[in-house]
């Protein structure tokens, strides 16, 4: 009973702090503190509810149990992280985004391709590409190569569509100005159109970060060597070792957030001039 009480108190305290924070004058500090308080409240309530109502470990392990498991299985988590995130997701992400960027330049150069390939690309971007995973495993084997391949396919189209849209972002006045400067295609591309495209390019890159991680993990359900996050999740669920599964989820969440955060940081540096970057 006391744990339930703890959960209720934690919730009330967290809520009142946040209400108080929202009444303060807006500042960086409050904007940072508020979500942190919310997150801590969530964890405290989770812990209290799981212990208070004596919820089965299989259903939902308490945060403290997950943290303990996380600390004791660091070596496993690290091996899985390297296999799935570094080898699978990251290499696929780089290849996929790079290829999409070059394809977008080609599409932009040739209007015929733009009219033909772009609708097809838009269509493919909305498809459940994750379903390609079994085919990729069949083609490229069980290793990380097949995971990288599915990541390439998954990030390619969002990146392509965004980059092509970005290359059209500069308006005709600006292009005319470049022409009066006697700038050729390449110079206009480098000095005007690529910089103008950057907000869109980063939009594609940011969408790609989560897709890459998801693709790499899900592809492991269709066959993988005896390591990797997807492999560990599916086998641990089978053994009802739910604390280890949640530890993997924590790793995935941290990796995903960090990946996205790095991209957002680079975006802020590169496109500092864009209105959306002003606070």
């Amino acid at each position, binding site marked *: 009973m006391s744990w339930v009480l703890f959960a209720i108190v934690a919730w009330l305290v967290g809520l009142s702090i946040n209400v108080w924070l*929202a009444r303060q004058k807006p500042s960086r500090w409050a904007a940072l503190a508020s979500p942190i308080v919310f997150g801590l409240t969530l964890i405290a309530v989770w812990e209290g509810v799981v212990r208070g109502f004596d919820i089965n470990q299989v259903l939902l392990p308490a945060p403290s149990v997950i943290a303990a498991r996380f600390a004791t299985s660091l070596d496993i988590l690290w091996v899985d992280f390297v296999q799935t995130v570094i080898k699978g997701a990251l290499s696929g992400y780089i290849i996929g985004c790079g290829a999409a960027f070059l394809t977008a330049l080609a599409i932009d150069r040739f209007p015929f*391709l733009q009219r033909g*390939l772009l609708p097809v690309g838009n269509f493919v971007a*909305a*498809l459940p590409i994750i379903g390609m995973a079994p085919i990729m495993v069949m083609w490229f084997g069980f290793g990380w190569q097949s995971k990288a391949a599915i990541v390439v396919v998954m990030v390619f189209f969002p990146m392509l569509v965004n980059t092509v849209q970005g290359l059209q972002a500069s308006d005709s006045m600006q292009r005319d100005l470049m022409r009066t400067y006697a700038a050729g295609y390449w110079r206009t591309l480098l000095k005007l159109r690529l910089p103008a495209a950057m907000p869109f390019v980063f939009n594609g890159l940011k969408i790609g*970060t989560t897709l890459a991680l998801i693709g790499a993990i899900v592809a492991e359900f*269709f066959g993988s060597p005896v390591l990797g996050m997807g492999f560990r999740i599916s086998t641990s669920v089978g053994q009802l070792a739910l604390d280890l*599964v949640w530890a993997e989820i924590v790793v*995935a*969440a941290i990796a995903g957030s960090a990946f996205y955060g790095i991209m957002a940081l680079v975006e802020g540096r590169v496109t500092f001039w864009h209105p959306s970057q002003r606070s």
Partner: protein
Amino acid sequence: MRNIFPILTVVGLLIVVWYGAAVALNAQWARDVAARADKTLTFSELVADTWSQDKPKLPAPHQVGAELWETTVMKKVTSKRSLVYHTWVTFSATFLGFVMGTALGTLLAVGIVFNRTMDMSMMPWVIASQTIPILAIAPMIIVVLNAVGLSGLLPKAIISMYLSFFPVVVGMVKGLRSPDQMQLDQMRTWHASGWQTFWKLRLPSSMPYFFTSLKVGVAASLVGAIVGEMPTGAVAGLGARLLAGSYYGQTVQIWSALLMAAALAAVMVGLIGLIQRVTLKRMGMA
């Protein structure tokens, strides 16, 4: 209409590449079989063989087409071997999850726009929630819910909901905030209450954003439903077909399930586009 020719060219090119890739990928197997039978294949024999194998690495388009015809038109709709039946199973989970996700997303967006506390404390977590690869833990959710007696449609729908609520939240927050200061001031000079401003100004002006989010959300829902079907040995649905096909090396089955999923996604996105056009027209916005 002027796009038809380029699109057809690109699609035609894709099919040609597909046939070519089928030859390249399946050639090894064809040569191995021929070598064991002490034969050498001429080029035309090789091509014919690569386009008609039972378990090719890459089935040729006409094989997939034949399989699709076989499993959709030739089978009874209620039969477990009919692809229409599997598509229906997936669609029902997708639809339920999509409706739940849209409702949740819209409610959250309204809360975030109207309540500063929610805006400050929840919005970052809504974004962070999407960096957790829910698809990766979908199997766990299904298994765990199965353990407490929840099975069938709902667990899959929950995963679909989780994937589709995010685009709706983001789009609706943006949409509900899209009226500019002038319009809001106008409402104030009319002495409109918060609710009146919401119903008469904010909600209508969020509609274009709403429909764009729905299109993204419905595609995400489908992905969620398909992945939700993979664990626990689900026997029905497009995801189950994919998994079974991958276990038994039935590539033709995988490809036909994939094409069916693609068609389903296209139809759903198209339907929303249709509703969007009609709605926006009647609201005088298109």
